[in-house]
């Protein structure tokens, strides 16, 4: 009996079309039952979208306006995902879940706000704009000079902007978090599959990454771009230059056959001394017949359908080609971002030490290339920063503490959000330790994920990186921390797993997700900008003459995204406390004095809702300070408004000419 006839069995023979349109047809019932939870989660999200009122956000950000259906969507999706993990569903189904989670987390705001979130993303758009207009970079520029010294990613983005027919990268930058998270997860699946044969661990770790990656380095930025390249580089080395045998690969054709046959997929592992030396996939059909599908061991694979066996040993030329590709990727990383190459060198060195065969010379090459770039292309920046870098090098404690926001003046909601983030870091560390202990207790352990987890910590020796060191360490260590953490629920060697593992994974994930929602979206009232704010900023930035004075309530608004080099920036919140006192005592007098300075050809003052939200939340000035300044200037005949709505106001000095 052929496999197909076994499957159809006593059921009436249906045409392919009838199978899909007949309500009794197996395909629909099968589809409905398998995808009911996933479909419900998607439906709940779609119902939620129009009910989110971003204008009503309070100090808890998106959490304050997310309807119950939004939370329900995430709960249902999580349950559906781990049911899928437990049942060993196909990669396509698991990818659908991951895709929906990424959409819920990262496309929601892009769809609703219609603007690019996070003020730093706007500054990056400004560098792209600079390249589009000038065709050069200026390493000695006064403002945002670091980007002119590591410009590759911006040049690439400028290329995409131009050939896509856009005027500005702002047209697509809102979708960067969605895209980057999808790329991160795809690269992580490759890495995890290289580290384990157990797909339950792979999928669990991928989900854990998404619900714990709260540090927000996924926006339109060179660090997100280079993180993706970093993960791909590590993936290449682990996948194709590791001494360990490759894991099983089930082709799309085989997956289709599995669907048609509707049986149970079986994955067997051959263990010798606790190490996987071979894998075999087969399928148990409805009648209990076992059909071998593929076999793989030490690079040899057996295809039962084609009755062929294939194995590949990479030749010298092929190895050269892949290292050529790695060299191009390294060059892109090294010239795009100052910090990622450091992580890469340390990570590659770690892999070389634990014996990822052909990669031993790679850390040296990466280190040399990094050094060459710092002494040539980035020497202007490096020379300026050298003294400051030397001062903090080795001060692990101060570099660690420099990361944390001063919460002494922050609002209660900001303190809650900050502690949610810190709690999430602690939870990930605990989960990783638990997973590592369980892995060791089961009699096996792999050094590679541990090395890649620990390597980023060395970065703390190098500097505080403007207070971002701990966040970067967390970001680069996270993939391997969640990989270890997944071992808390599922053993490396697979085998029979009770439903308790899936239940525990769901429970823990939902707790982590709660922390993520606070930590990632808790500041959304500061990070999400209204169209009014964008329009006000466009009015200020477009066409101003060189040397224009721009006084900002704070730098937190859509700023520096076009003609940014023409301005002298004075953020009020960055002024010393004595100046704050003086401004609050006499806003009209001080602003008139500043904006009347004829050294600047034109002068503007911009105050927006996001600036107010940030200033009040962090306590950088007394609560309501920017409101008070705005009210005083609105009431004064000495000032005119170039733009004024409830979300943004642009002031000019009465009697001073402006070009718009």
């Amino acid at each position: 009996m052929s496999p197909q006839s076994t499957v159809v069995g006593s059921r009436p023979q249906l045409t392919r079309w009838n199978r899909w349109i007949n309500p009794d047809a197996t395909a629909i019932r099968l589809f409905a039952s398998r995808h009911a939870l996933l479909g419900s989660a998607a439906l709940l999200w779609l119902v939620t979208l129009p009910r989110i009122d971003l204008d009503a956000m309070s100090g808890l950000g998106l959490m304050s306006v997310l309807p119950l259906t939004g939370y329900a969507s995430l709960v249902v999706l999580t349950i559906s995902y781990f049911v899928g993990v437990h049942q060993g569903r196909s990669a396509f189904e698991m990818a659908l879940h991951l895709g929906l989670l990424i959409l819920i987390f990262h496309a929601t705001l892009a769809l609703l706000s219609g603007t690019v979130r996070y003020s730093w993303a706007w500054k990056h758009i400004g560098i792209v704009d600079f390249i589009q207009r000038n065709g050069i970079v200026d390493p000695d520029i006064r403002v945002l000079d670091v980007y002119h010294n590591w410009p590759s990613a911006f040049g690439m983005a400028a290329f995409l902007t131009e050939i896509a027919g856009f005027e500005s990268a702002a047209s697509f930058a809102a979708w960067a978090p969605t895209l980057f998270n999808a790329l991160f997860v795809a690269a992580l699946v490759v890495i995890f599959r290289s580290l384990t044969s157990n797909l339950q661990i792979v999928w669990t770790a991928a989900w854990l990454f998404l619900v714990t990656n709260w540090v927000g380095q996924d926006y339109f930025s060179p660090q997100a771009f280079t993180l993706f390249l970093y993960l791909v580089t590590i993936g290449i080395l682990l996948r194709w230059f590791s001494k360990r045998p490759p894991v099983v690969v089930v082709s799309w054709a085989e997956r289709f056959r599995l669907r048609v046959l509707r049986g149970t997929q079986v994955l067997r592992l051959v263990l010798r001394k606790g190490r996987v030396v071979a894998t075999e996939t087969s399928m148990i059909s409805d009648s209990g017949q076992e059909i071998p599908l593929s076999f793989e061991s030490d690079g040899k694979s057996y295809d039962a359908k084609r009755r062929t066996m294939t194995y590949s040993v990479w030749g010298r030329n092929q190895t050269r080609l892949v290292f050529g590709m790695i060299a191009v990727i390294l060059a892109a990383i090294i010239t795009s971002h100052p910090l990622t190459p450091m992580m890469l060198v340390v990570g590659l060195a770690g892999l070389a030490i634990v014996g990822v065969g052909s990669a031993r010379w790679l850390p040296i090459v990466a280190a040399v290339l990094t050094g060459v770039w710092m002494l040539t292309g980035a020497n202007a920046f490096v020379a300026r920063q050298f003294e400051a870098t030397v001062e903090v090098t080795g001060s692990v404690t101060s570099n660690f503490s420099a990361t944390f926001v001063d919460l002494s003046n922050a609002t209660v909601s900001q303190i809650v959000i900050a502690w949610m983030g810190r709690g999430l870091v602690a939870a990930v560390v605990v989960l990783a330790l638990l997973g590592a202990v369980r892995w060791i207790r089961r009699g096996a352990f792999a050094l590679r994920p541990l090395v890649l987890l620990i390597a980023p910590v060395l970065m703390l020796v190098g500097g505080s990186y403007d207070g971002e060191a701990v966040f970067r360490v967390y970001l680069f260590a996270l993939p391997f921390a969640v990989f270890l953490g997944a071992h808390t629920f599922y053993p490396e060697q697979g085998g029979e797993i009770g439903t308790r593992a899936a239940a525990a994974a769901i429970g823990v994930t939902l707790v982590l997700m709660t922390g993520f929602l606070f930590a990632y979206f808790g500041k959304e009232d500061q990070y999400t900008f209204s169209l009014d704010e964008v329009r006000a900023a466009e009015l200020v930035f477009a066409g101003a003459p060189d040397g224009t004075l721009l006084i900002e309530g704070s730098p937190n608004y859509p700023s520096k995204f076009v003609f940014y080099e023409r301005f002298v920036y004075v953020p009020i919140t960055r002024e010393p406390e004595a100046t704050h006192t003086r401004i609050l005592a006499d806003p009209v007098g001080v602003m008139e004095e500043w904006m009347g300075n004829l050294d600047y050809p034109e002068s503007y003052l911009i105050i927006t809702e996001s600036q107010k939200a940030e200033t009040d939340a962090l306590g950088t000035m007394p609560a309501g300070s920017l409101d008070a300044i705005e009210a005083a200037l609105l009431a004064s005949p000495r000032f005119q408004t170039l733009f004024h709505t409830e979300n943004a106001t642009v002031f000019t000095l009465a009697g001073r000419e402006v070009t718009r």
Partner: protein
Amino acid sequence: MNRDLVWPGIVAASTVVMTVVVALGLGPPIAPVIAVWFVFVCPGLPYVRLLNLREPLNELLLAIALSLSIEAVVSLMLLWRSAWTSGRMLQIVVAITVLGVLLDAEPTIWGRRSTTSTKLRGIDHHRVIDLSVHEVTSEVVGSIRIPPVLQASEGTAASADSEYSRS
């Protein structure tokens, strides 16, 4: 159409379409769709295909990483020479893409042996053994049944090559 020419054909066609779109100065909604596909996939895919990975997800991921890296490095070189324009950059990226397509398609067009891309692929090291003449039986080793032919698979390079040629 020969299956080996499908992807080189798609990449070549995408390159032509991208060039035409830029030449005509088209904008949204057509240009962004084509530009994203071209920028993210086309320059790197032909080179990744030379590796003959047989793993679609990994090939796509590597193609995206390589494509973006190629464009980043090209833009750096142009910025370094103060010569960055999107048109000049497109010319260089198209040239890199076309070279990759030619290398990828070369064995199919000109024959498999003694061609540059065949050497690049390390194709001599891929051995496909036709088992249709063997009876696939099983024996238990540990917890798994291994087709016995695996133990007999380590042929000489010469025999493997001849078997490859037959397949």
